[in-house]
């Protein structure tokens, strides 16, 4: 099986997610980009699992999904709270915790 297209797709998705995290200010979008990066890595894990003929990569992908779900719960709650107090979802506005 040729794994190259999957890996390339995974790399492209990861890069898009990465750039999104770095350049976007809206917390919701940043959050979605993080999800994109997680799923890109999931894709890579599953691909390698298939290539190697074992299940370890797929198990890892499941773990990532579980963690991502938990993260969404906590992260969205935080974003909601910030939005309620500051009337804004911009990550640059929430910069009080600093030197």
């Amino acid at each position, binding site marked *: 099986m040729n794994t190259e297209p999957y890996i390339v797709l995974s790399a492209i998705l990861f890069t898009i997610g990465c750039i999104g995290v770095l350049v976007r200010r809206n917390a919701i979008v*940043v959050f979605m980009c993080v999800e994109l990066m997680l799923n890109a890595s999931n894709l890579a894990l599953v691909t390698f699992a298939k290539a190697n003929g074992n299940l370890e990569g797929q198990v890892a992908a499941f773990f990532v999904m579980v963690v991502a779900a938990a993260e969404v719960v906590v992260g969205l709650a935080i974003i909601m709270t910030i939005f309620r107090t500051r009337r804004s979802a911009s990550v*640059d506005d929430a910069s009080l915790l600093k030197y």
Partner: protein
Amino acid sequence: MPDVTALAAEALVPVVEPFAADGVFGLLWLVIALPLAGAVVLLAGGRRTDPWGHLLGTATAAGSFLLSLVLFVALLGRGEEERQIGQELFTWIQVGGFDVGMDLLYDQLSALFLLLITGVGSLIHVYSIGYMAHDPRRRRFFGYLNLFVAAMLMLVLAADYLGVFLGWEGVGLASYLLIGFWQYKPSAAAAAKKAFVINRVGDMGMSLAVMLMFVTFGTTAFAGVSAAAGEADSFTLNAIGFLLLLAACGKSAQVPLQAWLLDAMEGPTPVSALIHAATMVTAGVYLVVRSNFIFENAPVAQTAVVIVAVVTLLWGAVIGCAKDDIKKVLAGSTMSQIGYMMLAAGLGVAGYAFAIFHLLTHGFFKANMFLGAGSVMHAMDDDVDMRHYGMLQKAVPVTFLTFAMGYLAIIGFPGFSGFWSKDKIIETAFADNLVVGLAALAGAGITAFYMTRLMLMTFFTDKRWAPEVHPHESPRVMTVPLVVLAALSVLGGFLLLGDWIVEWLSPVVGAEEHHELAVPAIVLTGIITLVVAAGVALAWFTIGRSEVPRTAPAQVSPVTRAARADLYGDAINDTLVVRPGSRLVSGLVVFDRSVVDGAVMGQAAATGGLSDRLRRVQNGFVRSYALSLLGGAALVVLALLVVNLV
């Protein structure tokens, strides 16, 4: 001095091998314990001992003297071979192979010292009862006096250099306490400190000598060191000799550590008498004579002793000529006379006995004169300036007569004790070296000059008293000790009768066949007497026949000015030690502030500054954190790649 080496080879240096103490000698420890107990009771007992403190202090000293007398008689009764008695009290220090017992050694030498210290010391105690009668702290004074006597007795009775060191330090402490007894006077406090600090320099020599002895011989006991001294290499022995000389210089106020003695006159006069006659300054002479087994094998150090002694005996004499303070004249004369003793001690086997002989006679006549000076001061309302005295012979007749005995003794008037002892030292000096002999002879002449000057200015010439002063004779408690000491000053020469003292001491310090002189001894004695007479005559013509001004004339020769300034002893110390020392210290302070503190503080400032820059990274923007996270991850990947490729 070439022949000193030869002497060392010929002379049989005696080895210390004491017999166990039996019978009455078992009480030896009590000689030290009595005054020590007195000191403890008086100093720890506080005010409730005030009413009888002086009596107890005197009683312990007198008891110690009586005991010394009994022991001396017992020693006389023993055979000549059995006169070294050792008493082992207890183990003092035991560390590994190093074992020091608190051992006492009672032999011919320490027997004489015991009599001098306790005898003259007791008389000074008695005198102090009267002299300090009006001092509210008299009891404390007696406590210190007892401590002084106890420390000095420890010094001369110890059978071990470490024991000597114990007494040595005790004497230093007691002298500090006594010189600064009137510590509310800033000058007295400063003098005490000066004496203590200068003595510390000497003490360093002593402790180094003890350590070197332990390293070399494995023991510090007289017995062990004297037995092994012959085999050690001469460099080590000379080093020990020089260190012991340094120690002796400190305690005995020899050049270059002489500066404290003149300032020490700030203490009460009985203290001066005690320091100058019975204790303290004689310790250095004792140390050199006791260490004869070292010095006999260390000719270089022995020569150094002679040089130091000659310089000191002239130095002190010159200072004595120019001072107007009666006590300072006497202090200068002490320096000079101790110089004579050190000279004799430095001349080796030929001179040890005469050093001790002069030490004894000097103890008598100097204690006599110091106490006499105290009596004069007592009469003149504590004025010490001789220019305010004059014609006191009628006002204080007993003091005058007793002082005159001391005076005749110190200048070496034929028949008086000082005549015999000084004559012998000068004779020995001439037999050894012409230059040394001439210096000693000149010293005798100068001594005669300044002592005559003192006599004339105090007891003769015209009255120059302050108008409110009414001189009166001192009470009996002060004059009786004076009379006793005057008698001893006259009769002290009897110790030489039939060369008794030389033979008595020969088992300790060795003996030598009679040295030959270029001229017969009687001619030399005549010359010495003539020089002394010339000194007396010079004083008579310069002081006795003209009017003495009430204030010291300012227009004087440079020599007089130098002598008034103690021959610039303090200035020399200042230039050579004090000022370079303080400059070194201020340099070190600058170094500490700039380099050491600079390094520490600079490091702290650098860390702080760097942290200040670094914390800017925590800017609160999540996206910049994400960027650094990405950068970090990229770096890790890069590193992995590099590692894998290599």
